[in-house]
């Protein structure tokens, strides 16, 4: 649905996006992570045909960026970094304007549908200026969906929202995912990306890495399993160190911290070896690295 090849954007002396090559499949939720000023918004603006690239090529829903811009705009929904509502106009009129500009056939019906879906129906005649930040954000999401686009660009959809509002927005994005829409999600919220995204790209002017959150963790840190024993010591650790698939063993209090590539396959053998050596295994768990660890490790190394 989204394909870029060496996509580049330069503003005079500043290289904002450097040779981005990327493929996002239909129905995929792609998380686009990166620090402030990394070029995420510039990338979204290029893909939504708000600004033109200075190099490379891109297609969105089969339309070529720079040549079929109006077709692309007709087929994508964009949630911009700030809601940008017309504060003096009612919520309903805000949506009505955009429904007309997106050439929606049933303007009244679509406006009603999304106002109800996002819980704003009762406040439809209130001016957008009286809305809280969360409500404005929901209204902006409704605006991006009025023409039922199959591709959505969401730029920081939960930025600045309180936890309750952020959760509502996240749940709504999850619903959109279930509907099979392709979502390009720019976010700083790593937990959000972890929960919602099928794949994640970490970006800082150029793409650092693209993979699933689970693969990123595995690649960056390996997988660590914690074995809680009644009494852990170097004896038990020594037993494990003789096993060829065990990469590292650390003793921390009454726990053995074991790094292995494939815990699902090797954990039974490790438990068997520990029990045979006289150790009493109380319970076993995986030590999960957060996506934040992965992200910080990647960005720190640039």
């Amino acid at each position, binding site marked *: 649905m989204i394909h870029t090849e060496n996509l580049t954007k330069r503003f005079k002396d500043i290289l904002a996006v450097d040779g981005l090559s990327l493929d996002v499949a239909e129905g995929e939720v792609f998380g686009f992570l990166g620090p402030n000023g990394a070029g995420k918004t510039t990338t979204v603006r290029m893909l939504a045909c708000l600004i033109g690239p200075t190099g490379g090529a891109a297609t969105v829903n089969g339309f070529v960026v720079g040549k079929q811009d109006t077709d692309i705009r007709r087929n994508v929904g*964009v949630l911009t970094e700030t809601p940008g509502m017309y504060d003096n106009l009612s919520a309903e009129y805000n949506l009505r304007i955009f429904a007309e500009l997106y050439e929606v056939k049933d303007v009244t019906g679509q406006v009603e549908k999304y106002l109800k879906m996002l819980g704003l129906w009762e406040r439809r005649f209130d001016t957008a200026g009286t809305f809280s930040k969360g409500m404005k954000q929901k209204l902006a999401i409704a605006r991006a969906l009025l023409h039922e686009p199959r591709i959505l660009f969401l730029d920081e959809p939960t930025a600045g929202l309180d936890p309750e509002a952020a959760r509502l927005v996240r749940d709504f994005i999850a619903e959109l995912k279930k509907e099979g829409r392709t979502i390009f999600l720019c976010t700083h919220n790593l937990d959000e990306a972890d929960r919602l995204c099928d794949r994640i790209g970490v970006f800082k002017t150029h793409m650092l890495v693209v993979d699933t959150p689970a693969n990123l963790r595995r690649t960056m840190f390996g997988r660590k399993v914690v074995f809680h024993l009644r009494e852990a010591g170097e004896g038990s650790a020594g037993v494990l160190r003789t096993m060829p698939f065990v990469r590292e063993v650390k003793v921390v209090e009454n726990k053995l911290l074991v790094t292995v590539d494939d815990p699902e396959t090797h954990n039974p053998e490790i438990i068997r070896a520990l029990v045979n050596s006289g150790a009493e295994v109380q319970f076993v768990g995986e030590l999960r690295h957060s996506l934040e660890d992965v992200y910080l490790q990647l960005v720190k190394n640039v």
Partner: protein
Amino acid sequence: MNKIKTIIRKEWAEVFKNRMVIFTVAFLPLLLTALPLGIIFATRDASSRTGEALDSQLPSEMTQSMCPEGVNSAECFQIFMVSQFMMMFMIVPVAIPVTIAAYSIVGEKTTRSLEPLLATPITTIELLVGKCLAAVIPAVLATYAAFGLFALGSWLLVANKMLLSALLDARWLIAIFIVGPLLALMSVAFALMVSSRVSDPRVAEQVSMVIIVPVLVGLFGQMAGLFVLNKQVISSVAVVMLALDALLVYLATRVFQRESILTRWK
């Protein structure tokens, strides 16, 4: 065409919620209508009081070109006085669009609403035409309404119908119905260019108001007797305005680049 209508309706719905804009749109035409009517009212009996004394004070060029036969010197003086206000009427189509455009175009900056608008399938031309018309139409209508009130007031106040026809002659009609809309378009095109080039809405509004200066120069020039606004001068102004508008609209569309506006308006 539908998108242009949507933009116009949106602009009006938003702009006319601002009391300052309503005040400007309503007050300026009313003031500039009341002033010449007041002059007519105050000088309606001048013929009996001043008589021939006024004759020597009027520019001969004016009496020859403006005052038809059958109009006495006092009535001719009335025509002269009121004709001074023609340039003031020209302030309406220049000032009102600047006020509206300042909210309509630069206001997008403060609300950060331009980006979602540009993300829709609307073309730049549709957007510009919509915004231009949203500012030009009220200005032209306000000018027409002011002129209508002025004509009605003149008809009620002036007994001599020859004087009335002289007040509502071709000069006024060309000025109001041709030069007025051209001035409004010039004003909006200029405001668009300024808005596209500056990053601060207040600066945009203030710089855009510069467009009134040529009209004020014309007003004071006429009052100082540097020239007389006869039919030939007004017609020439209309032709020059047409060319100037074409140039300004072209430049405005060149300057109004989606990308530069999005990246400049921080």
